[in-house]
C-alpha cells in the first residue's frame, strides 16, 4: 500500500493516538473500549483506523496470542514538534473537482449559511422522521 509515512494526523487519528499514548499499548478491543464513547463506533472501523496509523508510521503492531497489539511508534512531544514544522503540508490537501462525482460540491459556506439551511430542514420537513 503506497502511503506516505508520518503525515500529520487527522482529528480522528489524533483521538486514537491520544488513546494509544494513554494506554501505552492495546488490542483493537482495548482501544475500542478506551475511546471516548460520544458516538457508537464499529469494531471494524476502529481496526481500520489503527491500520491507517500503522501505515502512516505512528503506530506499530505485534502479534501476541493470536491478537494484534498496537503501540505508539511516535511520541506525543515528537508529534507536537512535527506538527509545527509541517504546517505547509496543508497546501496540498483537498479533493479533485473534475473526473469524479462528489457527495457535495465545494462552496463558500459559513456557519450562518448552515444555520439557515438547518432551519429550512427543520421547519419544512423536520416532522417527516418516521
Amino acid at each position: 500500500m503506497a502511503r506516505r509515512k508520518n503525515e500529520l494526523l487527522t482529528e480522528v487519528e489524533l483521538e486514537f493516538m491520544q488513546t494509544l499514548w494513554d494506554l501505552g499499548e492495546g488490542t483493537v478491543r482495548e482501544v475500542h473500549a478506551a475511546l471516548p464513547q460520544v458516538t457508537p463506533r464499529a469494531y471494524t472501523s476502529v481496526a481500520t483506523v489503527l491500520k491507517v496509523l500503522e501505515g502512516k508510521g505512528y503506530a506499530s503492531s505485534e502479534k501476541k496470542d493470536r491478537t494484534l497489539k498496537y503501540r505508539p511508534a511516535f511520541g506525543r512531544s515528537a508529534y507536537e514538534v512535527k506538527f509545527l514544522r509541517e504546517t505547509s503540508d496543508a497546501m496540498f490537501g483537498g479533493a479533485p473537482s473534475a473526473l469524479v462525482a462528489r457527495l457535495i460540491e465545494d462552496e463558500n459556506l459559513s456557519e450562518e449559511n448552515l444555520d439557515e439551511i438547518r432551519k429550512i430542514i427543520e421547519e419544512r420537513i423536520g416532522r417527516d422522521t418516521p
Partner: protein
Amino acid sequence: MIRPEALMNLLIDANLALMIAALAFALIEGCMRFAGYGRAYSARLRLVMAAVYVVALSPLVLFFFRTYGGGEIPGFSDLMIAQFLKGNISIHPILFDDLLSARSSAVAMVAEGRAPLLILLAFLLIGAALARLIYVAMNLFQVMSLVRGAITLRRIGRIQVMVSDRVHVPFSTRGLRRFYVVLPQDILMDAPLMKVAIGHELQHIRQRDLECEILAAVLSPLFVLNPAFWYLSQKLRGLREFACDFEYMRRSGCARVDYARSLVKVAEAAFLQAPQRTMFAFSVPFVGRSRLFSRTARSGLKTRVNVLVAGEVGKPGQMLNMGLLVVLAGMILTGTAMLQKSTGWSHDRIMMSTVVNLERLNSRNNP
C-alpha cells in the same frame, strides 16, 4: 496528414453543434417547466445526457444519413440564398456572398498565416485549451494518487469502497474496469452517515454519471471557451445530484429529513470543521489558497436542500419521455446538418454565383 483547415473546421463544427444542443435543451426544458414538469429531475437529466451523446454521435449519424438514401440536407446558407434570390433579403450581392463565405475565408486566412488578429485569437484558444488540458491531467493525477493511497474497506463486484485521510468529501470515480467509492476517514465513525454516503455514490455509478463526467472532462479542452459547454456541464452536474438524491431515497427508503441532515453534516465537516481541524491558524492562507481553486462562486447546498424539501413531482410518462428525446435529437441533428458547410452545387447556388460574378464584372467595368 490532416490539413490544419480540416481540423479547424472540425473544431468549429463541434462547437456549433454543442451550441445547438444547449439551445435545444434549454427550449425543451423551458417547455417542460411550462407544462409543470420542472421538478421531474430524472427526466431532465436524461435529456441533458442525451444532448451530449447526440452531439458526440452526430457526425456518424449524419454520415450514415447522407450515405444511405437520406441525401443532402439543405444547409442554413442554402435557405438564405433561396430567400435572397426571391428578393426577401435586400443586400448587395457581393456583400451577401462575402457574409456567406466569411467562415471559410477566416479559416483559410488563419491556415495561410494572413490575418494576425485571427492568428492571435487562434493562439488564445490553443492556450486556453492547453491550460484546461493541464488542469484535467492534474486532476487525473490527484484522483489516481488518492485512490492509490486509500485503504479498501470492502469490495462489491467491480466496486471498491475505500477510505482516505486526505479527503473531506465522499466521492466516486472509475478506472478502466473498476469503480471506486472514496470516503473520508471521519465518516467511519458515523455509521448512518457512511451508509448514506456509500448509497449516494453507488447511485451515481448506477446512473452512469461517472462516464458522463469523464467524457465531459476529456472533451473540455476542445470547448473551453464555449459558454454552451459550461451551461450544459452545470446543468448536468446539478440535475445528476438532484436525480441521484431522489433515486437513492426511493431505493433505500431513507427519509428526506435524514438525508438532508446527512448532507449538512458532511458539509459542516468538510467546509467548516476541516480548516479548524488542521489547527493551522497561522497558515490559513495556505489552506485557503489550495481550496480557492475548487470553490464555486455560489452555494449549491441550499438549492439542493430546497429541491429536497419541494420533492420530485410530475414525472412525465414513458411515451412523453421518448417523444421529448426524439424531438431533442431531431433538433440537434437537423441544426448540426444545417450549419455544416455545403459541398454540392444546387440550382440556387449556380444562380447566386452567376449574379455575384456579373456584379463583380460590372464593378470592374464601371469603377
